[in-house]
């Protein structure tokens, strides 16, 4: 069930964004994640300084920006993998500042990593089972009584098998995750994140290191997440992908959110162009500027001649 066959959710997501200002921090009709004045400093360097940003529920939002814009640091802060020096953010109205990463995940905000973290020496199935929450057998004492967790384990396995089938990894069920290809690992990581039962899926560069043949399938899976009512926030460099799947784009540069907008128009926003390419990068030299430079050079020459005389 790819997004193209059921346009309902996409249309709903796009309708929510219709008529919104393209200003950084614009309020959304139904935000799932609201970030306020989040700052992260590494010594003298301010890596993240986000004043206000909201992520609309049920949409696919892209977070883009040039290298070093602080996207991944921002991501790490939101998911509890890095701390914030200042600021606060709420997920479903719940304050998340200072909440450790595992509690953020339990609250329903699950992330993947830029460098895929497949658990190599666990089988694909064990990777999947690990994602399930509230497992009775994960308690030390109950673990010693297999009868107390067998049934739940069977249910988890069934859910995992469904997901593996959907991600076309069912043939790899009993292989070590370390033996998968880079793209398959990305798929496994995404499927494993879904085992948690998230409301907001945070993907850190889902397309990095994936061979082009798998890209389309991965894109389809990301769209499927929205179809199932989840919200997706992802960091990506591949602009084709951003244009293809995202409903809204947030642009970061030098730690701050500099612009927001729909994917079709955001790349022509002058602030975005400046951020990627630098201000005045391609403006042709006007005749006045040319004259000015010529006169400067002449004046320099004259002063040199005078000195020598």
């Amino acid at each position, binding site marked *: 069930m790819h997004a193209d066959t059921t346009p309902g959710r996409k249309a709903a997501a796009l309708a929510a964004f219709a008529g919104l200002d393209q200003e950084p921090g614009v309020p959304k009709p139904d935000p799932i994640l609201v970030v306020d004045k989040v700052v992260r400093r590494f010594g003298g360097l301010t890596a993240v300084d986000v004043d206000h940003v909201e992520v609309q529920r049920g949409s696919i939002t892209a977070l883009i920006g040039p290298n070093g814009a602080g996207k991944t640091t921002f991501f790490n802060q939101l998911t509890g993998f890095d701390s914030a020096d200042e600021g606060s953010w709420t997920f479903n109205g719940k304050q998340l500042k200072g909440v450790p*990463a595992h509690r953020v995940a339990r609250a329903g905000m699950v992330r993947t990593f830029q460098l895929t973290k497949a658990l190599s020496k666990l089988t694909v199935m064990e990777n999947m089972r690990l*994602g399930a929450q509230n497992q009775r*057998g*994960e*308690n030390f004492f109950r673990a010693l009584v297999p009868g107390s967790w067998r049934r739940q384990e069977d249910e988890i396995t069934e859910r995992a098998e469904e997901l593996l089938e959907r991600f076309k990894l069912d043939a790899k069920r009993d292989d070590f995750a370390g033996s998968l290809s880079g793209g398959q690992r990305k798929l496994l990581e995404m499927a494993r994140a879904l*085992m948690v039962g998230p409301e907001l899926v945070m993907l850190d560069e889902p397309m990095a290191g994936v061979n082009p043949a798998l890209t389309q399938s991965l894109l389809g899976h990301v769209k499927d997440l929205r179809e199932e009512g989840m919200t997706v926030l992802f960091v990506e460099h591949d602009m084709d992908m951003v244009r293809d799947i995202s409903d809204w784009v947030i642009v970061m540069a030098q730690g701050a959110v500099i612009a927001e907008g729909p994917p079709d128009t955001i790349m022509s926003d002058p602030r975005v162009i400046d951020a990627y390419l630098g201000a005045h990068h391609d403006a042709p030299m006007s005749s006045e500027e040319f004259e000015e430079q010529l006169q400067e050079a002449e004046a320099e020459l004259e002063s040199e001649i005078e000195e020598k005389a």
Partner: protein
Amino acid sequence: MDWNTIFVTTVKASIGLETVVYALAAIGVNIQFGYAGLLNFGQAAFLGVAAYGMAVTVATFHLPFWLGILIGLAATIVLAFLLGIPTLRLRADYLAIVTIAAAEIVRLIFRSVKFSSVFGGSDGRQNFSGDFFAMNPYSPGTYGIGPISFNERVTWVLTVGWVLIAIACGLVYLLMKSPWGRVLKAIREDEDAVRSLGKNVFSYKMQALVLGGVVGCLGGFLFALGQASVQPDLFSTEFTFYAYTIVILGGAARVFSPVVGAAIFWVLLVFVGNTLSEAVSAGLLPSLFTVNNIGAVRFMLVGLGLMLLLIFRPQGIFGDKREIALDAR
């Protein structure tokens, strides 16, 4: 050369006190390092505080034997928390540094002159195993098959020891097949991934550290009881490294590998040592080898054997070659 003596002592070593003690210590290391990936280089200290906890309670303060066991267990758990709380949130290497230093601190406190009224200095403590041997169901005599037999005291210690090993292996088997064990193995692979899936990594690492310490401390009790004395230098750093050698020899993260590894390690040491000393006394070796230096030569040969093992079978005896192949990717 007296091959009969060599044979008898070697077979006895395979189930003897050292094998039992090192097997328990190695089962603990296997839980911590093999399954959870925690580099605890202070396993000797866990055995040490347990053995001293019991010995000091009984010998210094004249309190009951079972109270001594309880105090030994409590001391082990306290040590695990002391080492774990500051370091388990940090990168893995910090635990290694802290534990190796802590183990030396513990040993030096046990042998210090200042506390010799409590711990007995470098002589350690004796006269605490009476209650344990009073429970001995074996009547005086020897038990075993032909020349391979032990007196009633050793038989009692070994019986308790092998029962404890069986229990510990059963525990590890059950745990590592469960979702609890799955979380542990996942932490060994990548902590952050496990965190992102909603598991409290710190808590699991602490549980593994405590469990490995408690299993190891059973070895500490047996070490003390089997020799009817404790000395600080029994619990030096090389003890820990032998335990690691045993785990790697057997193959990390396998239930029986520490037990088989310990047996092989001690069989090798005893066999090579006895063969060398017999050969020296029979004048079969060049004069370079004397009774005084074959102890060192024995370790060199065993070390060479272990190196060859790691070159030709890096996964250990029970390990899965496919897992090692993954590391090379």
